[in-house]
């Protein structure tokens, strides 16, 4: 029983000690506040969606701009308009590429 305990202890100790050597920390970012100003559409490269049904507490549209990420409020019209325009752009690229392949 004691030798078993010692074995488990040593394994636990080694496992935990070896951890920092071979891992990179996982960063979970969350938007906690929205942009108060509007971003110009041309600066936007893409977007991702943060939903409150996952780990983050608020919903947000994250626009990826040339200068970094921007948290925006999905209840604002301009935000959803940008999202639609990005989607349309992607759809158009899709249609063009499909035609080119035909």
């Amino acid at each position, binding site marked *: 029983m004691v030798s078993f305990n010692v074995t488990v202890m040593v394994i636990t100790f080694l496992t935990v000690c070896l951890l920092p050597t071979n891992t990179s920390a996982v960063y979970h970012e969350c938007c906690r506040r929205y942009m108060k100003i509007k971003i110009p559409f041309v600066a936007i490269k893409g977007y991702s969606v943060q*939903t409150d049904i996952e780990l983050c507490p608020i919903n947000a549209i994250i626009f990826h701009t040339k200068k970094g990420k921007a948290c925006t409020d999905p209840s604002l019209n301009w935000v959803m308009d940008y999202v639609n325009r990005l989607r349309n752009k992607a759809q158009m690229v899709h249609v063009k590429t499909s035609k080119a392949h035909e």
Partner: protein
Amino acid sequence: MDFSDEDMTLNQSDSDFNYTYDYYDINDLIGPCQYSNNHSVEQVVGPYIHTIICILGFVGNSLVIVTYAFYKRTKSMTDIYLLNVAIADLLFVAALPLIVYNELTSWSMGSLACKLLRGSYSVNLYSGMLLLACISADRYIAIVQARRSFRLRSLPYSRVICTIVWACAILLSVPAFIYYNRYEPTHTKEAMMEGNQTSLPPQYVCEFKFTDNSTAWRTKVAIPSTQLVIGFFLPLLIMIFCYTAVIVTLLRARNFQRHKAVRVVLAVVVVFLICHLPYNITLFYDTLNLFEQHSCELSDTVQTTKTVTQTIAYLHCCLNPVLYAFVGVKFRNHFRRIIQDLWCLGKRYIAPRRFSRATTEIYVSTRRSVDGSSENGSSFTM
């Protein structure tokens, strides 16, 4: 630019915005919070401090379990509780390195490990806290209600109570089993990007995931609230009530060891408060302001405070064996016999004299209740 003119600008083409492009600068961008302070604290706390907690908790609690398993034939009600607290704490420190490992490696052990580890964490938290409340109630009955204690402090009774405590702990942890999932958060997967993007390996988390908004809001508040109420305030109130009555009774009794007993009781309560109060205050503040908009500095500070205070709370499981088991003379005698049996030389090195000064064993024969309480009281060790 303001929200007020958004309708006007809705149908304008991209070129109309070009002139504003120069005016927006990097300082205006409000991006997702990086929690950089919290991450640097976690880099130290996660692997190193938790290793120390794991080792101390593992040694202390397994010694308690081994002592009870092999050398204590006549178990009292208190012994049953202490054994269960040690089991809960041991399971907790066994799960802790696995949780730390998985959090650092994008939950490499899979989704079942995610559910099991988060669930067992919750079960052990509730059972540990409720059992400490049971111990305080047991001591209250033994000392304050000494006349009734013969009937109330029987072995089958304590087994039933422990079963109820574990059943409650499991029931209260059902939401954790259900809603913790291993997944890739949608906002870290890039939904739509122009040009070629660097594809990172998927980053999994083991966090809450719900199917709809209303469940999400309710559960994100309900789980920490339950933890605050049943996992902290309820045991705290029971402990304060029971131990206050115990101290009052002890101070009235003509027992020469009463001051030592009072000191032990105070140590139990003070350590409980020091370990759990900071974390629970932080948890309360965090839950209260969860859906509010925050600056990243503030939410990083809250997150860092939570990481630090949670580690202090974890320390409690290393202190329980000392505060509850090793402080009792009878337990130490049993433990000493183990040492003697294992290493014949051990007797010479671990001299009984070294510990006996700090001992406290309360005989509940507080003169007033003579009938039946002597055999009952002798089993009550603190």
